[in-house]
Structures are given as C-alpha cells and as structure tokens.
C-alpha cells in the first residue's frame, strides 16, 4: 500500500508544480516571453502573504485574497513599464532583464527578510487529513491539487470563452493585425502578466503554508515550473498539470528509494521525456 500512497502524494505534489507552471505557460503562450524571475516572484508573493498574516493577523487564505490585486498591479506595471521594452525578435534582452530581476528580487528579499527560512501558519489545516480506506490524504495537498485544477479550468475559460481571451489569442497570433482591430498589445501583455501574477500568488499561498521557504529558493521553483511546461508541451494548460504530476511522482518515488534522490529523480524524468518527446506530451504551440 505504501507505493500507492507514495504515488498519490506525488500526484498531489504535482498540483503545486502545475500552479508554479501555469503562470509561466500563460506568459509564454501569449508573448513568447520566458520570465527567469518567475520563481523569485512566487517567493516574493509568499513573503507578501507572510507579511499580511503576521502584521494584520489575517488568515492566510484571506491574506492571499488581499495579495491577489497587489500582485496583479505589480505584474501589470512590471510588464507595461519594463518587460514590454524588451520584446522583439532578439531573445537576449528579455532573458537578461528577467535574469537581472531575479537577482534583484532575491537579494532584496535577503536584505528585507534575512536568509532565515519562514513558514505561513495555516493552523489546524496543516495537520488535517482525510482517511479514504487505508490511505490518508493531507487536506492541504488536496486543496493545492484542487486549486491547480481550478486555476487551469479558469485560465481555459478566460482564454477560450471571454473577449479578453480572444484578445490574448489574437495578439499572440498576429499582434499587428490585432492592433488594426483596436487591440493595444502593450495593455494586453500587461494584463496577461498581471493575471500570471495572480496565479503566482495562489502558488505562493500553498508554497508558504506547506513547507518552509527562504529568499533563495526561487530559481529551483522556476526550474520545476519550466520542466512541467516542457513536459506538458508548450501552449497547453492541462499539459502543465500532466507535467507537474510527472515531476511530482518522480520526486516522491525517488525520495522513497533514497531521500537524497528526490530532486534528482524529477530532473531525470524531465530529461527522459525530452529524449522521447522533444516537443512535450501535448504540444499545441508551434515553437
């Protein structure tokens, strides 16, 4: 039974990775921008929630709800004022600017919050679990997974059922023609990054309540998110969930064999998928 339990834990962990990945996939899908600061933005959001919890005594879920519009505004401004300037045919400027941003956020957080590891307390929820037959499922991991599914359903609805989503797709396909139809690409891009930052905030809530975090752990989250996106195939939100689950299961199975192999097993699963299916499992976008 323990193997079944291990795999189930892996699937639930995959929900967290899918949350990390969804924001990255959203931004890449619309403007072909890879944000190397994505992981650090997740950690920044986790510190914002921590600040709201400790300063105002809010429940973490309420604090995350307060953080959502703040992070949206931050993402909107970041895209509108900085990242829009880097978009073009050359891949160097966006990569190097977001890499610089990653270093700035990491060291800013180190200055502001020190290198200590922190945790957002979720009270009794942290240890609560559901007993289904012989298997017990932690409530927090289950909530994380359900949130990931909810986020992906919501993103698909926004993308394919709203006028905003139509504008996203039109700008992504051909921003010049979309411009002729009255769509202002720079505002669409800013809204997309704002939306991605809201997903990041939800990811940060679970990152901070499930385990300890510190200012330097952003890059590793970026790598998990990236692996999930590539495994899933570019442009597919459900694919990122599948990718997250593969990384999550590989990590828990690896850890069950030898605790030191946890992270390594996830990376190796990624390489194997890259070897067999270079374009991922469910590719949708052309590049």
């Amino acid at each position, binding site marked *: 039974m323990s193997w079944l339990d291990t795999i189930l834990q892996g699937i639930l962990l995959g929900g967290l990775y899918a949350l990390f990945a969804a924001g990255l996939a959203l931004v890449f899908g619309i403007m072909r921008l890879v944000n190397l600061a994505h992981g650090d933005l997740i950690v920044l959001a986790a510190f914002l929630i921590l600040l709201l919890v400790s300063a105002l005594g809010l429940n973490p879920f309420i604090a995350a709800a307060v953080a959502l519009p703040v992070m949206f505004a931050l993402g909107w401004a970041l895209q509108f004022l900085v990242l829009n300037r880097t978009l073009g045919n050359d891949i160097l*400027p966006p990569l190097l600017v977001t890499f610089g941003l990653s270093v700035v956020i990491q060291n800013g957080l180190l200055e502001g919050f020190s290198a200590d590891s922190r945790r957002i307390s979720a009270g009794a929820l942290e240890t609560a679990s559901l007993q289904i037959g012989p298997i017990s499922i932690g409530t927090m991991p289950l909530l994380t997974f359900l949130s990931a599914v909810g986020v992906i359903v919501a993103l698909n609805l926004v993308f394919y059922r709203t006028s905003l989503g139509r504008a996203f797709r039109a700008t992504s396909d051909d921003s010049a023609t979309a411009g002729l139809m009255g769509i202002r690409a720079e505002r669409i891009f800013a809204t997309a990054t704002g939306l991605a930052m809201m997903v990041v905030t939800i990811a940060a809530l679970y990152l901070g309540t499930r385990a300890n975090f510190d200012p330097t752990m952003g*890059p590793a989250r970026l790598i998990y998110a990236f692996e999930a996106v590539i495994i899933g195939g570019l442009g597919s939100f459900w694919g990122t969930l599948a990718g997250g689950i593969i990384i999550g299961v590989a990590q828990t199975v690896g850890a069950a064999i030898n605790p030191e192999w946890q*992270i390594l097993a996830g990376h190796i699963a990624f390489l194997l998928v890259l070897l067999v299916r270079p374009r991922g499992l469910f590719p949708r976008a052309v*590049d």
Partner: protein
Amino acid sequence: MSDHLSASSWTVSTRTRGSAVSMLAILALVALAFAAPLFVSRSVVQDLFFILTMLVLAQCWNLLAGYAGLVSVGQQAFVGFGAYAMFAGVSLLGMDPMAAILLGGLAALALSVPTAFFVFRLQGAYFAIGTWVIAEIVRLSLAQWKALGGGTGTSLPSGATRDMVGVRFVADLLGVRGPQATDIVCYWLALFLAVVTIGSIYKLLRSKQGLGLAAVRDNREAARSVGVDPTWTKSFVYLVAALATGLAGALIYVQKARISPDAAFSVPDWTAYVIFIVVIGGIGTIEGPIVGVIVFYILQSLLADYGSWYLLILGLIGILIMLFAPRGLWGLFADRTGLQLFPVRRILAGQPKPKDIRGSD
C-alpha cells in the same frame, strides 16, 4: 562581366588604422601583467588572478550568447565539473595539480557532448533554462560522490599545491615562500589561459567559421542557404566554451584548494557575475568583457561590505544597461570614437582598375 574584374584588385581585411597600435599596446600590457608578481604584493596577485579567471569565464559566455546566440544560464556546470575532475585527479589519482587542470578541462569538454545533445533540442529561451537544469543535475550527482566529500565537500591534500610543477622553481627564483609561489604560478596560468582564450576567440571570429557564426546569428535561414550549417557551428562553439570554462574552473579551485557542490556550482558566482560583466561591458564584442570585468572589480571593491546590496545593485545596473544601452559601456564608447581594439568587421578595400570595367563590352 565580373569575369573581367581582376579578383586580386580587391582585398578583404579586418585591419583598421587603430588596430596595429592597439595590438602593440595589448602586447605591452600582457608583458607588464607577466612581470607583475615581481613588484606587487601577494594580495594584488590574488586579485589579478580573480580578475583574469572571471575574464575567461566572461569571454566564454560572451562567445556563446553574444556571437552564437546561445544564452546559457548553466555554465556553472562546466566550472564545477572541471573543478571536481581536477580534485578527483589530485586527491584520488595522485596527479600533479597542473596535469589535473588539463584533466578538468577535458572532463568539461566530455560533459558538454551529452549536454549539447539535450539542450540543443530546446529553442531560444528554453535553451537557457535547459542548461540550468543540466547544471543542477551535475551538482546533485556530484553531491553523491562520497569520496570527494559528498554534499559538504572536501579540501585538496595538504601540500598538493605546494608540490605543483614549477612552484619550487618560482619560490627559489623569486625568493618567496611556498604558498605565495603557488599563487604566482596560478596567476601566470590564469594569464596564459586568458591570453589564449581571447586570442583563440579573436582568431575564430576572423576566420571563415567566425563569419558563418555571425551569419547564423543575424539570419539563420539566409546563412543555411549559402551553406553554413547552424547546428554544427553552434555545437562547435558550445564545446569550445565548455573546454575553456572547465579549465578556468579547475584553475580557480587549485587556488581555492577547497570545494563543495554548492560553491562549485554556484549560480551567482559563476553565472550571474559573468552575465553582468558581459552585459555591463558590452555583449557581442571582445572588448566588452574586458571593460566589464574592470567595472565589476571596482564595484566589488567598493561594495563588498554591503553583502546582498552588492548583487542587488549589480542586477539593477544590468537591467538598466540592457534596457537603455544594450551594447554596454564599450558599445557607448565605440559608437562615439569608432575605436576597435579587436576589429572583426571585414572591410572591402581596393577598387577595380578602369580598364577592367571597359573590358566588359
């Protein structure tokens, strides 16, 4: 008609008026740098060693990103792997550190072959994170190597660097003590590596392959249509950069004499600093990393006491330069003066004689 034009009346040259002068100045500077240990203190020699090794790493990254369009965030894989191979050579095989440095470079080169196989499947921006994943895999794998200290790391056997080839000779010649002689030998090796690296890159860029590289960077399809193989050209550059990066990594850790996976595969030390050096100095030029490493060293001396503020400021400068002066400090300077120390632009000189043109009708 063109048959009548005598081909020999045209010449393609990369020389400019200033380049002969600058070449002499550079030779003089290298000679001065070679003699430096005779008249500067040990701490200055150590600082110069640091500058030269960072310069090698920066030139390699610049070759990848600035010329081949391969933005790698995972060059620490080769620094760390080269360093670990050197440690294995000295600690486990009892090699001389000097030979083990070569082993480190070759090990990095060997690692770059399977690495290239994976990361070249990823396009553009995804290549960047792919290289990072590889570096993480190498770090986590080497942290399992218990003979070299596992996750906590290990030190070189005591006396290993003191017995390195040439150290006793330098100690006797200059009348200095063992550790100082080790520093001086390491410094000369770093100087040699830097000169060879810059010389090789300059030679490469002036060659046919270098022209192909620039063509692939500027327009991949057009370059293919005239027979340049982009994958081969990029792979070649990737392997060469891995070799030089591995040599630099091994050399850095001979001088440090203590290694751990976290330090040897550190993203800030071996990639963030290197990227900022190149971006601040000017990406896509040989001069850029040289200017960048000097600015980097000055900033580090000024801000070293401020801990993470230092990296934060470096990051901000990097972002501002990328946004407002994407060709860096050297680009700003060269635009105003037209000066090039390492000219690689081909200039067509000479003209057909009038009678050749008349001959066409």
